[in-house]
């Protein structure tokens, strides 16, 4: 079914239509949240919260941006809140290779690869918020800088600069 029609129906309180929207976008929302937070449990909580907020906020969605872009804006706000809450509590996130799936390569190479992946995820999660948002949305979701700017709350040019600074830092730490 056409997405605009689903949105229209969900706006009128149609739960089935909203369920279909959730099914369509949950992977992308979870993916963005987990790349940003580097924590699957927190990311799942955020993804759920995003759709609950979206259901209530549908009346305010005017369709100026793509529906997914709008969801990513909510995701970023929710992820920021969760990150701040956990930071206040003084929790330390552990980025271990154990979170990643089994890789069918010899033990040594597998361990080295898992280490490299864990390091990459850790370095990404250490970037300042706007740079992390810009890099994540560009390299994993393939969004334009205009869309990224709408999500992270800056101009298209500033989104591009944040992406470049983020990539530069990652180049220095990962290579």
């Amino acid at each position: 079914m056409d997405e605009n029609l689903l949105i229209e129906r969900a706006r009128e309180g149609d739960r089935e239509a909203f369920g279909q929207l959730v099914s369509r976008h949950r992977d992308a929302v979870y993916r963005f949240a987990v790349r940003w937070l580097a924590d699957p449990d927190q990311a799942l909580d955020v993804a759920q919260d995003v759709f609950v907020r979206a259901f209530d906020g549908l009346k305010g969605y005017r369709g100026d941006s793509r529906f997914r872009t709008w969801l990513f804006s909510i995701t970023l706000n929710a992820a920021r809140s969760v990150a701040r809450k956990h930071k206040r509590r003084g929790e330390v996130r552990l980025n271990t290779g154990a979170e990643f799936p089994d890789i069918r390569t010899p033990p040594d190479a597998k361990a080295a690869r898992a280490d490299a992946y864990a390091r990459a995820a850790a370095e990404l999660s250490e970037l300042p918020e706007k740079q992390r948002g810009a890099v994540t949305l560009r390299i994993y979701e393939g969004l334009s800088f205009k869309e990224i700017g709408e999500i992270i709350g800056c101009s298209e040019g500033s989104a591009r600069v944040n992406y470049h600074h983020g990539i530069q830092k990652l180049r220095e730490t990962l290579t």
Partner: protein
Amino acid sequence: MTGREVCDRMADLLPEFLAGRLSETDDTEVRKHLETCVECRNRANAVSLLQQTPIPQPDPDRWGGFVKGVVDEHDRRHKKERRMMTILTVVAVVVLIAVIAYLVAF
């Protein structure tokens, strides 16, 4: 275009290049540039590593019931809001009655 501007343009194109989504012309341009520019090659390696990094998987039980979980959580929050509204309304009515009673008595 200055050298810096060329490198910035390459960095813009890297995600699509690594995903094989560039046009033939852009793909050839990026390939040629990467052959000669160490800085951009290192950026490409970093972006490639990030793109290959697997997504940590969510709890399968929660993921399986995700849609239902969202709707249930939405209902739970609304019930809570309605309960709060009811309590506030009752408190407001009681206060109003008390004020009226006080004014009538004195």
